[in-house]
């Protein structure tokens, strides 16, 4: 009788971060301006993938690592909202700078509601009617210590590293209603449900309108 063979030893390779098909990204690409450069603001960590993606599409690309601005040490220790208000350099761009698209990625999950209002007020001078803010909002009860690292992999796919590990902080449970109220005059325009227990939110800058969310909210499992 043959002795039992030990199972083949397989190489342990780091697993690729979870990715998802993004309907919101497809929607944004379809709606990008055709007659001028796309003005994009990325509020995540600097990322070559994202830079190249937008550079190929002729976009003017700006970056502010929002979470690092709020918590420079990036140790997941939280921050004081009153200190945030005192940050002169928070979302400060040149006068006249306006963006068509703001990528908040998963950062809003790490901010309390009061911070959303502050961020909205700082972004408003740099928005034009129709500016879209893209956000990934979790439905989970707990979140990692720090925001993840989102990369656009292609025109339909986004990878999100950092959410496949330990959950160490309670989630603020932002809902569409919370976003709409806290971030007025931004209004929730579209949502898409993801398998990652997250929603993609497109929040549109609509100055002068009622902060209550308007328009159909679409969902679809991805």
């Amino acid at each position, binding site marked *: 009788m043959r002795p039992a063979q030990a199972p083949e030893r397989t190489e342990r390779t780091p697993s*690729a971060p979870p990715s998802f098909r993004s309907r919101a990204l497809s929607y944004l690409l379809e709606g990008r301006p055709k007659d001028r450069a796309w003005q994009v603001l990325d509020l995540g960590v*600097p990322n070559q993938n994202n*830079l190249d993606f937008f550079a*190929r599409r002729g976009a003017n690309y700006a970056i502010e690592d929002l979470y690092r601005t709020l918590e420079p040490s990036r140790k997941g220790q939280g921050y004081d909202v009153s200190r945030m208000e005192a940050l002169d350099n928070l979302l400060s761009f040149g006068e006249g700078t306006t963006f068509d698209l703001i990528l908040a990625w998963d950062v809003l999950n790490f901010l309390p509601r009061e911070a959303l209002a502050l961020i909205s007020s700082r972004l408003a001078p740099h928005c034009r009617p129709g500016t879209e803010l893209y956000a990934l909002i979790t439905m989970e009860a707990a979140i990692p210590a720090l925001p993840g690292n989102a*990369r656009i992999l292609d025109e339909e796919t986004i990878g999100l590293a950092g959410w496949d590990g330990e959950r160490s902080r309670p989630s603020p449970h932002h809902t569409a209603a919370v976003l709409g109220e806290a971030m007025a005059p931004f209004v929730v325009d579209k949502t898409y449900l993801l398998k990652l227990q997250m929603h993609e939110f497109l929040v549109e800058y609509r100055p002068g309108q009622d902060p209550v969310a308007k328009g159909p909210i679409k969902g679809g499992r991805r």
Partner: protein
Amino acid sequence: MSNRDDDRKPLKAPENRGGGTGRPATIGASIAVRGELVGREDLTIDGTFEGQIAVKGCLVTIGSQGQVEGEIHAKTIAVEGQVKGNLIAEDQVVVRASGKMEGDIQAPRVALDEGCQFKGKIDMEPGVKKNEATGSESAKGGGEKSPGSGASGEKDDGDSKPASSASEPLKSESTEKDSSAQSGSQPPSGQGQIPQHGSGGGNGNRHKRR
């Protein structure tokens, strides 16, 4: 040294008097300089510099201990330390993992190594003036394409811009008809070339479209 009475006259680098060690000029870690610096050779800043630097056609490296506040004009700029100000490069700007930058970048190619800190705008078409208000674009005189650019006539769903280069050859995305030469994305050998440090841009993810 510039004469304060001739502030309107741009400072000119002296003519190349021959010789030279082949090593970059260096502002050492214990040196602090404030003013205007022009030159025709590669420059490394390990100390502190406040002002304007113009070494067109050459490489400027802000070392890991270096701190610069001001504007830098060069062929290639590598940031390993801290920069507060704008960077204008004829070829490429690289922000290394240890780099911290706040300011705007104008360069045909930009590489952001994973872990770097950056706040500002990136303009990879510095030769084209983009008019946001009117939506028109007009080419400035002297705008040049980077060596890595190509297939400018190809368009795929409006994606006509070639890939930028990272500090490692950039692989095209699956949906892109990108025929830009990967090898062409590297700076030419000789003056102005960034030594490769091994850490490339954070574009390791490749995802095939179903």
